[in-house]
């Protein structure tokens, strides 16, 4: 019997009672009059083709219809693989399966039309150029009659609180709006099982809040929800059950969040899970800031960054904050000497630049720049230029003419410090997210620059890598290096920022403040700076020096 037949004949009750035009949902297949629905895993394991290790193994799990589950585990425990398996996105020929996995009593690839999944990267989920067309895409694929499509599109868009008309170009949306649109595209298909694979990891806090609110509003009581989310505290209001995967295989803990964290919280935190309520000790600067390294005078890059004043000092950690679109990454590129300023100027002190102090940093030769200012990009892979981890770290040194012995003496301790020694011969493109991030920071440090500029260095990192990065940055700062970090990460700011600079979104004028967003009226050319831990003072176009 084909899936379509099952859909029609085996869920008459729901068809009548619930929504009239709705298809069957998770938990509604009937065999011999007895419900067998929901998610069932028995000894499930998956090994990707060509890999020695199992991505996930020995998982026994029952999730009933309407349950909301947060799936946790240290990085590498196989959370995303499990979601992909449930969504029927692991083709049989792409690996090896153990045990059984069922959605509504069906193999996942047969239950595809009952399952919806939202991924992390909004750019890799949107298909069409116009918002409404994108939501309609899934409905067209499933053969929904043309007359029903647009009412369902509008309904899905309103369920996620999409603030624009459906003709809005998808390219004109912010990350948070794109993720809400992706969610609408999945909800329009009325899945009984909704899977979320870190849907807010790429977003600023305001965007992430809106997406979570959209999930909370849009998911009704008989939709089963399974979420993988890094920031556990933020995801907890969405769920009533936590399942912890063991990296070696199996399920370590399963139950209500309070019970799981009371029993296993310490062990999970040590392994890198962001267990709520476990704060990290702050690592503020011991002494006063040192000499000035860079001075920005009305530095800007229209239309991306309004004119900004600031100074960067040695021995100080400066955090640059602000919503997506405020120009934080552009500021990082300008300070890193990688972009020609559109307005104003950037002056390097003799302390940083030596004889080059009179030349603006964007005109320095690349090797000289790399020896003075290290930049860590948001996407680590942009920075990799060689074919092994060791060569990545040796590159800058070899360019300055260092002997192989000197190279070893510098690189080996760095590898050790960032837990990369066992990967020295690996290709950088094969590293996991955390490893790639550690390597990209290490490459910027290998030439011992006085100033380090990082764009979202802690983004998407587990708690263990996060703490290692904070410790490393704090040590560098205390050794007299300057540190500028563009970040959305409130914990990072709380732990180690000595001073903050908040950029406002001034130039994206067509973007009305979204509902629930704590956004004041945009102030032209405004950049506010404040000592960490205090509310930013509104100062026009000035970065106030506070410590």
């Amino acid at each position, binding site marked *: 019997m084909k899936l379509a037949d099952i859909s029609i004949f085996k869920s008459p009750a729901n068809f009548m009672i619930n929504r009239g035009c709705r298809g069957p949902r998770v938990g509604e297949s009937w065999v011999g009059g007895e419900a067998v629905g929901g998610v069932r895993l028995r000894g499930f394991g998956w090994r990707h083709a060509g890999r020695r290790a199992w991505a996930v193994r020995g998982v026994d799990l029952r999730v009933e219809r309407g349950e909301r589950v947060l799936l946790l585990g240290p990085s590498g425990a196989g959370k995303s693989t499990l979601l992909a398996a449930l969504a029927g996105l692991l083709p049989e020929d792409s690996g090896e399966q153990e045990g059984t996995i069922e959605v509504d009593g069906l193999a996942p690839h047969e239950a595809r039309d009952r399952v919806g999944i939202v991924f992390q990267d909004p750019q890799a989920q949107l298909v069409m*150029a116009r918002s409404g067309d994108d939501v309609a895409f899934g409905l067209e*694929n499933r053969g929904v009659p043309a007359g029903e499509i647009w009412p369902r599109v509008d309904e899905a868009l309103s369920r996620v609180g999409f603030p624009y008309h459906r003709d809005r170009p998808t390219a004109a949306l912010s990350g948070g709006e794109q993720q809400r649109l992706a969610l609408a595209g999945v909800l329009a298909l009325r899945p009984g099982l909704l899977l979320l694979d870190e849907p807010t990891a790429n977003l600023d806090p305001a965007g992430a809040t809106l997406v979570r609110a959209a999930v909370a509003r849009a998911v009704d009581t008989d939709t089963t929800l399974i979420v993988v989310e890094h920031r556990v505290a933020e995801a907890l209001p969405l769920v009533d059950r936590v399942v912890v995967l063991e990296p070696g295989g199996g399920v370590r803990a399963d139950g209500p969040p309070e019970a799981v964290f009371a029993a296993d919280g310490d062990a999970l935190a040590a392994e890198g899970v962001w267990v709520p309520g476990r704060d990290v000790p702050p690592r503020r600067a011991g002494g006063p800031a040192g000499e000035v390294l860079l001075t920005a005078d009305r530095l800007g890059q229209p239309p991306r960054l309004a004119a900004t004043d600031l100074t960067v000092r040695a021995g100080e950690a400066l955090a640059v904050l602000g919503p997506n679109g405020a120009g934080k990454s552009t500021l990082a590129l300008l300070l890193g000497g990688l972009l020609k300023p559109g307005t104003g100027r950037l002056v390097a002190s003799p302390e940083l630049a030596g004889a080059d102090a009179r030349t603006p940093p964007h005109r320095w030769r690349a090797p000289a720049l790399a020896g003075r200012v290290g930049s860590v990009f948001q996407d680590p892979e942009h920075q990799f230029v060689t074919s092994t981890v060791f060569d990545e770290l040796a590159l800058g040194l070899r360019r300055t003419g260092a002997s192989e012995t000197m190279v070893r003496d510098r690189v080996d301790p760095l590898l050790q410090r960032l837990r990369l020694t066992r990967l020295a011969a690996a290709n950088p493109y094969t590293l996991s997210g955390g490893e790639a991030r550690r390597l990209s920071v290490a490459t910027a440090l290998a030439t011992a620059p006085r100033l380090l500029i990082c764009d979202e260095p802690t983004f998407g990192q587990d708690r263990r890598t996060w703490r290692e990065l904070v410790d490393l940055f704090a040590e560098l700062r205390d050794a007299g290096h300057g540190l500028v970090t563009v970040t959305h990460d409130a914990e990072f700011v709380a732990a180690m920022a000595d001073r903050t600079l908040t950029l406002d979104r001034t130039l994206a004028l067509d973007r009305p403040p979204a509902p629930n967003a704590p956004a004041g009226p945009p102030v032209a050319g405004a950049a506010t700076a404040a000592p960490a831990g205090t509310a930013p003072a509104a100062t026009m176009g000035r970065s106030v020096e506070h410590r």
Partner: protein
Amino acid sequence: MITLEPLAHPDAPLARRNPVAKLAAALLFAVPLMATLDPVAPAIAIAVELAVLPLFGLHPRELVRRAWPLLAAAGGVLVTLVLFAADRSGRLLLDAGPVVVTSGVLITALGMVLRLFAVALPGVIVFATTDPTDLADALVQNAKAPARFAIGALAAFRLVPLLGQEWQMIAMARRARGVEAGRNPVARLRLFVSTAFTLLVGAIRRGTRLAVAMDARGFDAGVPRTFARRQRFGPADWLLVFGAIAVAGAALTVSVALGTFRPLIG
């Protein structure tokens, strides 16, 4: 900057025609013109193309903005022919050592340049007045192209502008690492290749993720797709197609009648 959005006013009578009809008209208009080497038929064609611009809601300035690579190509054709043409017949116009310019050379070159414009402009006009989504829809609905191909290409197309931004980021990241080519051409080539490789790796990964996300929404479901946006192919669209054939035929007829017709083959 690569612009993919249509430039034209969407309500212009010909811009509104079915994208497949516009594409077919452009092809059926341009291909016959390739049969002749003379300048007259392409000149008539260009005159017609410019005359219908307002019907497509397109300002000549916008056409120049889209078609400027053609101007560069035309310049290239002109220089190449003047320098290397085998046929040096006709009146001598300029004799500067190795460069011999005769009237025969100039007429051949003029014919080539006009042909280039006459054949390429219809395509430029069609793509400047057609929304990519509409084109994909029409290809699937009216030309029975496979949806997997047309919609897949459309989704990939949407990622193209991202590549430019990625390239800039990778180039800056390389500078931050202390890698720069300076004036050494070999180093420049190697840097270009390595930047392109990084770009390619990223593009393939993103494309793969997009393909998975599309399949997760049933793109590979195998049930017949329905169409949210209906594309119609009506009498006016047929008229456009046959009109294009008729005008191309007329241009060739005039060329034959004037005796300037020079067949490409023979």
